[in-house]
């Protein structure tokens, strides 16, 4: 009697525990890999573009093929469900690699969009963000031939550059700087050119609008002041000797030192190897000191220029406000914002040459 009762319960459980929830089979869903958003000013609507790879059923199918879907709506979720009307399979955005913002959108402001993205539990916090020159739609519809799919290409482009040229900025980092006090976010700008897709600039935000851009030649100085980095290349134009030399394998350490309430030093120590010396030949300590000093001075000058630009625009991507907040007890954000343009920020960049290269001169 007891045994049959147990068996009965077991059977009931087996039947009823069959997870009656919508199944998501990987072959039968539209797996969105990248999203792009633009702003349609005349209709006040967002234009969303979703890219998903077209996995074929046979092995010979070309994996580079993508399907793109575009829809317009006022909310993000509605764009997704609108896209559904154009896609044959259920749309899933759980595997998204990155989000691109069109240039019009970042000029209009991305606050609403950003907060809506944050509300979706399906979207990871480690995804890449970037600004697309002109429109995100045209960039994502680029028919460029790449080794992998276009979203993978853009992801790798952003990922590798975040290790070498520009600081990393994922969704969490962007939120952190956007919502936090005493800091402002920035994003890389990618551009579709005749030959491919390139990362051309870094766009700086004031609140949720883009306000300033720097090009490739200022990436290095921004990055060394912003964070510790390794494996970089810096090209130095030595005007005195009319030579351009290159330094590689750079690693640097940065630290902010406060000297009173209105003066801060950004202490940067860079170590590198001289790789393209153009027959400069460094044989004595004196020559080494000379070149080190020349590079340090140049970097200090470039750093000062950049900081002056930031202070004029009242943006703080170097997170100096946040550092002050940790330093001074009576820090408050409104007072800081008033004082920020007048604060003396000194980039104290010091360059050390550690190695020469494989050729003796």
């Amino acid at each position, binding site marked *: 009697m007891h045994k049959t009762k147990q068996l009965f319960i077991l059977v009931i459980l087996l039947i*009823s*525990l069959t997870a*009656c*929830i*919508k199944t998501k089979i990987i072959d039968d869903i539209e797996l969105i890999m990248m999203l792009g958003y633009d702003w349609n000013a005349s209709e006040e609507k967002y234009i969303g573009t979703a890219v998903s790879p077209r996995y074929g059923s046979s092995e010979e199918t070309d994996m580079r093929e993508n399907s793109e879907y575009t829809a317009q709506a006022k909310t993000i979720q509605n764009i997704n469900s609108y896209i559904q009307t154009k896609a044959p399979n259920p749309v899933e955005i*759980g*595997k998204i690699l990155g989000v691109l913002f069109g240039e019009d959108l970042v000029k209009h402001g991305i606050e609403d969009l950003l907060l809506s993205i*944050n509300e979706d*539990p399906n979207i*990871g*916090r*480690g995804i890449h963000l970037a600004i697309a020159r002109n429109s995100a739609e045209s960039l994502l519809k680029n028919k460029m031939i790449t080794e992998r799919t276009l979203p993978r290409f853009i992801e790798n482009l952003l990922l590798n550059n975040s290790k070498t040229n520009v600081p990393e900025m*994922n969704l*969490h*980092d962007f*939120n*952190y700087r956007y*919502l*936090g*006090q005493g800091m402002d976010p920035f994003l890389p700008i990618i551009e579709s050119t005749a030959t491919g897709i390139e990362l051309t600039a870094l766009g700086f935000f004031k609140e949720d609008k883009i306000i300033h851009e720097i090009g490739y030649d200022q990436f290095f100085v921004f990055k060394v002041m912003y964070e510790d980095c390794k494996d970089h290349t810096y090209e130095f134009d030595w005007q005195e000797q009319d030579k351009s030399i290159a330094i590689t394998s750079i690693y640097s350490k940065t630290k902010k030192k406060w000297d009173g309430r209105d003066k801060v030093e950004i202490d940067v120590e860079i170590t590198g190897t001289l790789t393209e010396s153009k027959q400069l030949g460094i044989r004595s300590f004196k020559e080494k000191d000379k070149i080190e000093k020349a590079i340090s001075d140049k970097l200090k000058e470039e750093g000062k220029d950049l900081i002056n630009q930031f202070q004029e625009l009242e943006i703080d991507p170097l997170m100096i406000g*946040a*550092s002050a*907040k*940790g*330093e*001074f*007890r009576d820090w408050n954000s409104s007072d800081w914002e008033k004082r920020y343009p007048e604060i003396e920020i000194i980039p104290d960049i010091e360059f050390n040459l550690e190695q020469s290269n494989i050729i003796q001169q």
Partner: protein
Amino acid sequence: MNQQQKPDISQMVSPFLLLFILHATQIGEGILSFERRISKVAGYDSWISILLTGLATATVIFLIWRIVPENKDLIDVHLELFGKIIGKIFSAVFGLYCFAIAIIVVRSYIEIIQIWLFPDLSVSYFLIFLYILILYMVLGGFRIVIGFAFFSVFVTTFLAIFKYAAFSNGYIDNLLPILNTEIINIIKGIEPMTFGFLGIELILVYAPFIHRFKTGLKWALLANGLTTFVYLYSTIAIFIYYNIEQLQRITWPSLQLWKVIDFPFVERFEFVGISLHFIAIIASAALYFWAGTQCFHRLTNISFKKIAISFAIIGVSSVFYVTNFLVIERVTTYLSKIGVYLLFGYIPFLFIVWLIITGVKKKNA
């Protein structure tokens, strides 16, 4: 006294298991969201509130060991101190409180599953199976419940390790300068924090089930210390990862932190985290459920099974009265308030009454 309601040696557990029991009841659903609640009150300095709460709860544990004599529980103490009627009313209220916590813990965990994993999950269906599981544990006796609690400790410790992601990406500057919040706010932070330490009051009910109860004090204090440590570690991880403005907008900071962890085989760690957390939730809900049932069983002499089943039915039907997230949030707030008063008001009050009455008795003797 009905002797049958008292456990015999075959139902007892050894005192060192208090470490697991107490830690498992303390860490439940609260660990996923408490950082937001405490930082709202005391900002970045609220980690000091955790230490203070840890100290305060350790004192409460100490008081409990003074109040409860060997082989007796809260119901006996109530009878002795307040007489038959009032004592029984107090015990009944305590039992109801246990059930309320069990119900809300289960329900708020289902809310997390609904939001993060399966938006189209049927709540009533899931509740039925959860309560079948809880009933299985509770009816199996105290030892089965403890078995679950034992595993729960390993799970929560394992999950806590994965907060390492914060230390590699965070900004330690956030915590500085220390003590920049007003002291009064840090003390106010004890109130929301206490919800995370609730579970101590259950010792009053399961005390007779602990073999050589009086020797268990050090294990209970150790459990409390472990809880404090886990909370402290978790808070510091969250604080250096988020800034306060961001934290206030995030319902479950830990889950969002897990979102950035990915392994080649797990794209997003929060799914693993939520699923594993199930064991911790079930362990603490089952202990509360068991305690509530035990209370009523001792009070009324109705069989343990009947009480457990009828309360399981009430629990399943919570789908009708805990209908949406606002109710959950509000009930959690009320219950945590009640919990604070229970720990820091009622138990010291019991202690004082106990002191007076034993003093009077001694004099008369």
